[in-house]
């Protein structure tokens, strides 16, 4: 302990022998003309220097024993220190023995040189390697808006991420505290908020960080990466300024020491490189690279290789642009070994995409010397070994390793070892077996008078459609659809999609209807609206959809639909079915009544069928309905069909009192 303490006096003592020796040396230079008057003075200087150097060396040794210095630098300094001490002793011994000018003085010169080197190494230990670096040109102004610094996002969140979040996060909440995002921070821990807004000194987060390392409450705990003084300063400044999570603040308003501490959080400046020569660009483009500029005012470029295999010519062209290359994409490219030999040449590369390439585990460690921020190795043969060699990378932020040889249980293990975000793919919650959609028909026609071919369509690979015609639900034993289904009687078609890996679809069901009579001649007695006209559509066997503007519907505004048509007894008609639609938004209401009148020859019409529609509730949705009216045709030869409009929109309707629309499509006689 005491010896360690004594060591601290090394810097106090060491300058004495240096001064003495240098002074003696100056006297020796003067003495070169005539040494006699100075001999005793020089001897005295040497003796003083020697003992000073000896004490200084011993103290230095004690300081070294106490530790805390970088081993290599100290070793050089210590060895040279002893050499200096010893050579002063030799100098002292030689002084009486040899010629002053020819032997003693040259040796003295060497001695002073050794001393200087020793001193230089010593200085490096205390002041750092860069202390004596020559002053450099001032760096260019960084092109971010320093007037709107977001203190939390740009610095505080990063500090938390680096030093705190590994123990204070969503899943691991030591002391109940989580620091991974603003909302969590505001929830506080068991002891409440970790800081006092506006007062850093009284904030637990700062207090704990400033406790001695051995203290149990010290944060981050011993053995974990510690907060640096500049991180601490930024953190304290943020708390003092109100611990805001958003809002911006000008860099210029920071106190100077905070500005210095904050500098590390400003975006890194890109290195200065020469602009790319046009000839190299043209070569790259010829070699199938697609090149684009990074920004207009920097020489940096991004390149994507569009070919399948990287030839040595292409690689050479790329190497000529290595300094300017900031992003390189080589998707699905066959990479030669030569590429990996040269990879370290791309010394400014921030983003590398190797997805789908033949990259191997052993290649990845070479990337550690690149300033990469993003690496894509998705769809490759990379195993955990490869990813492990990257975990210590100092600048990487994201590694995309989806679809590699990394098992899902290893994914978590790897992620726990690093602060780099590893993205392994995201099927969780998306991969459960899903239900297929029911099959779809190519035509919506369901009415026919002789026969009808029904055709399913499916663009789904490996999709199997099974169907029944007897009304039962199709299961995995039902008939497989492989050609159009021929229908020649009224029936219900049911079908379902099947596909391995998927749940079978819901049952698709459609009723097919063989119509007894096709109306060809008729006489309209009322007129539909011009916008929804074309009377033949009533009898064309094409049914309208719930879209009133689909071209199949006839619309009557405020008036009824009335027409006559001839029939014959042999047709044995028993029913008339009329399709209508209702849409509140479209002001379309179902008919209030349907009346069928009939007459034989030129006699008077009498009612032979009637349907009164009384809605059960106020409609809300757009619907389609078929009204079937039984008739007793008997000997009648002509029918008159009257579909009665409600005329005015009912009271419950938002536009009550306006003319109501009646929409009719197919009318069937059977």
């Amino acid at each position, binding site marked *: 302990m005491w010896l360690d303490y004594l060591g601290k006096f090394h810097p106090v003592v060491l300058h004495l022998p240096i001064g003495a020796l240098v002074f003696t040396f100056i006297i020796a230079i003067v003495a070169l003309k005539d040494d006699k008057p100075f001999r005793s003075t020089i001897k005295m200087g040497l003796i003083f220097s020697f003992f000073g150097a000896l004490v200084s060396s011993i103290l230095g040794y004690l300081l070294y024993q106490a530790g805390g210095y970088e081993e290599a630098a100290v070793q050089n300094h210590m060895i040279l220190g002893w050499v200096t001490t010893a050579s002063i002793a030799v100098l002292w011994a030689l002084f009486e023995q040899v010629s002053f000018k020819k032997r003693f003085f040259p040796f003295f010169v060497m001695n002073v040189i050794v001393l200087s080197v020793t001193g230089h190494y010593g200085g490096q230990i205390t002041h750092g390697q860069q202390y004596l670096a020559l002053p450099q040109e001032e760096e260019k102004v960084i092109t971010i808006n320093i007037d709107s610094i977001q203190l939390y996002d740009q610095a505080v969140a990063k500090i938390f991420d680096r030093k705190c979040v590994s123990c204070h996060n969503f899943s691991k909440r030591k002391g109940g505290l989580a620091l991974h995002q603003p*909302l969590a921070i505001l929830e506080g821990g068991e002891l409440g908020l970790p800081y006092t807004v506006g007062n850093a000194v009284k904030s637990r987060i700062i207090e704990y960080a400033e406790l001695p390392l051995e203290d149990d409450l010290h944060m981050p705990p011993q053995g974990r990466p510690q907060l640096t003084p500049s991180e601490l300063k930024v953190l304290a400044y943020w708390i003092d300024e109100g611990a805001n999570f958003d809002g911006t603040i000008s860099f210029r308003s920071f106190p100077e020491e905070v500005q210095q501490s904050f500098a590390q959080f400003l975006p890194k400046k890109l290195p200065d490189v020469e602009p790319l020569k046009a000839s190299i660009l043209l070569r790259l483009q010829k070699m199938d690279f697609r090149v*684009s*500029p990074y920004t207009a005012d920097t020489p940096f470029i991004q390149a994507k290789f569009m070919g399948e295999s990287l030839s040595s010519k292409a690689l050479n062209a790329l190497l000529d642009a290595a300094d300017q290359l900031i992003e390189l994409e080589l998707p699905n490219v066959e990479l030669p070994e030569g590429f990996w030999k040269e990879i370290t040449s791309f010394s400014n590369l921030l983003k590398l995409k190797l997805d789908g390439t033949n990259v191997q585990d052993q290649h990845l460690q070479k990337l550690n010397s690149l300033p990469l921020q993003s690496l894509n190795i998705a769809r490759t043969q990379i195993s955990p070994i490869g990813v492990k060699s990257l975990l210590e990378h100092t600048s990487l932020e994201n590694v995309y390793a*989806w679809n590699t040889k990394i098992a899902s249980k290893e994914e978590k293990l790897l992620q726990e070892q690093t602060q780099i975000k590893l993205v392994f*793919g995201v099927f969780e*919650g*998306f991969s459960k077996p899903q239900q297929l959609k029911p099959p779809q028909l190519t035509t919506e026609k369901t009415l026919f008078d002789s026969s009808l071919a029904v055709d399913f369509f499916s663009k789904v690979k490996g999709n199997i459609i099974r169907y029944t015609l007897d009304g039962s639900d199709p299961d995995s034993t039902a008939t497989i659809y492989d050609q159009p289904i021929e229908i020649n009687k009224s029936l219900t078609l049911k079908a379902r999609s099947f596909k391995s890996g998927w749940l079978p679809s819901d049952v698709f069901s459609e009723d097919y209807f063989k119509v007894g009579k096709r109306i060809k001649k008729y006489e309209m007695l009322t007129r539909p609206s011009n916008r929804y006209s074309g009377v033949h559509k009533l009898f064309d066997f094409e049914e309208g959809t719930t879209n009133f503007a689909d071209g199949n519907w006839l619309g009557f505004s405020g008036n009824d639909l009335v027409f006559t048509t001839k029939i014959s007894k042999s047709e044995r008609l028993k029913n008339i079915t009329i399709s209508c639609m209702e849409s509140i938004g479209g002001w379309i209401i179902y008919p209030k009544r349907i009346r069928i009148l009939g007459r034989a020859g030129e006699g008077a019409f009498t009612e032979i069928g009637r349907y009164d529609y009384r809605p059960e509730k106020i409609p809300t949705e757009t619907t389609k309905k078929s009204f079937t009216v039984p008739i007793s045709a008997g000997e009648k030869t002509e029918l008159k069909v009257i579909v009665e409009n409600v005329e005015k929109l009912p009271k419950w309707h938002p536009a009550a009192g306006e003319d109501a629309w009646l929409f009719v499509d197919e009318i069937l006689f059977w």
Partner: protein
Amino acid sequence: MDPLHEHLLNKNRRHFLQKMGLGIGGLALGSLLDPMGLKNSPTAADLLQTGPVPLPHFAPKAKRIIYLFQSGGPSQLDLFDYKPKLNEMRGQDLPESIRKGQRLTGMTSGQKNFPLTGSVFNFKQYGESRAWISELMPYTAKIADELCFVKSMHTEAINHDPAITFFQTGSQQSGRPSFGSWMSYGLGSLNDNLPAFIVMLSRGSGRPNGQPLYSRLWGNGFLSSLHQGVQFRAGKDPVLYLKNPDGISRKERRQMLDYLAAMNEEQEKLFGDPEVANRIAQYEMAYRMQTSVTDVMNIEDEPDHVFQMYGPEALTPGTFAANCILARRLIEKDVRFIQLYHMGWDQHDNLPTQIAKQAKDVDQASAALIMDLKQRGLLEDTLVVWGGEFGRTNYSQGTLTDTNYGRDHHPRSFSIFMAGGGIKPGFTYGETDEFGYNVVKDPMHVHDLQATILNQFGVDHTKLTYKYQGRRFRLTDVAGNVIHSILS
């Protein structure tokens, strides 16, 4: 003088005077006489700058964008903006202190009262970011931590067409270039074989007969026609009029195009109309697209797990989900701007039944698209935007019943979300009042959104301009601020 040649001189004279005015007349004269002759050799940077202004202005976070436009105006109050107060005050009249004279559409301006209605759907908080999402969007909820919600969007228009036009062109009146065209004009294409701006449409099952969209929404306005959006369709012909007529081989087509180009060049020399050069370029693009489009549209080579991820709808071409898979494939080909329009979000009546179907159309596929981009490492430089042209009212249009209501258009506040492209994930920006009617914190105007999106592409929105009829136009007109708080 030959009057036909006068235009060439006109052009030069105008350019000359323009450049003289800028004080570099001497140089300009030289460059007019021989544009390449002045410099001894152009640098690579010169060759790479093909656009009108040197771009990007600064380092971009995003290179590509997928804009999932939800046409019709999705009800923010039933999807993302949770307002329990509206459930408490159900049936009560909207206070004038909240409405503050807001104009209404003709569809509800005649209503005697405006009964407030909360959502019939349950809301919960999801992810570490604790984002509020309704039960209508279960897959979106799973990826809440990837998303940045903006709850404080507001617009100026109150009807569909002007509102969509406003979002797409920065102006309610049609005629300006669309967003994708500006992007194509400023930043150019990353792929020589496909257009820089591709549009795909799908119809929603919530309201299958909703408003139509017009192709001018992806039109180039006064920009060169090279920049107009190209619509890709489901079915045999993804791009209309692209394939060779029967009996014409690709080789014959090539010969025909070569001869046509030679004739067009003659015409260009005569008349100097830049549209002639554009037309030649478009013919060439169409020729290349004959093969590139078939490749990219053929989604049958996608493995089964992809369809599972995007949901069963993805198996049916032309659906929103199928278009999402296509969007991802186009992103892999570096198409700059992909816009999907999903129609049918216009729930004036029967909102609960309709919006449930509508949300189901898009929920899984949108979420799957974002996660698929993420696992492929594409999300970090691809921006995904999901949102409509305006929001919906907090009062019921038509009769309010226990289970049924409708909502009218509402421009003062609505929600959108974004992911990737340097936008802060797991974040919610802006707030509305407890009635979900007015923005009370951090508003984001349509122009702000446009400025922010351009910013992510390294473009200063005030500097991407085009001079037309004597005025310099830009996408954000004379407004718009980049919202820095949502940038990561």
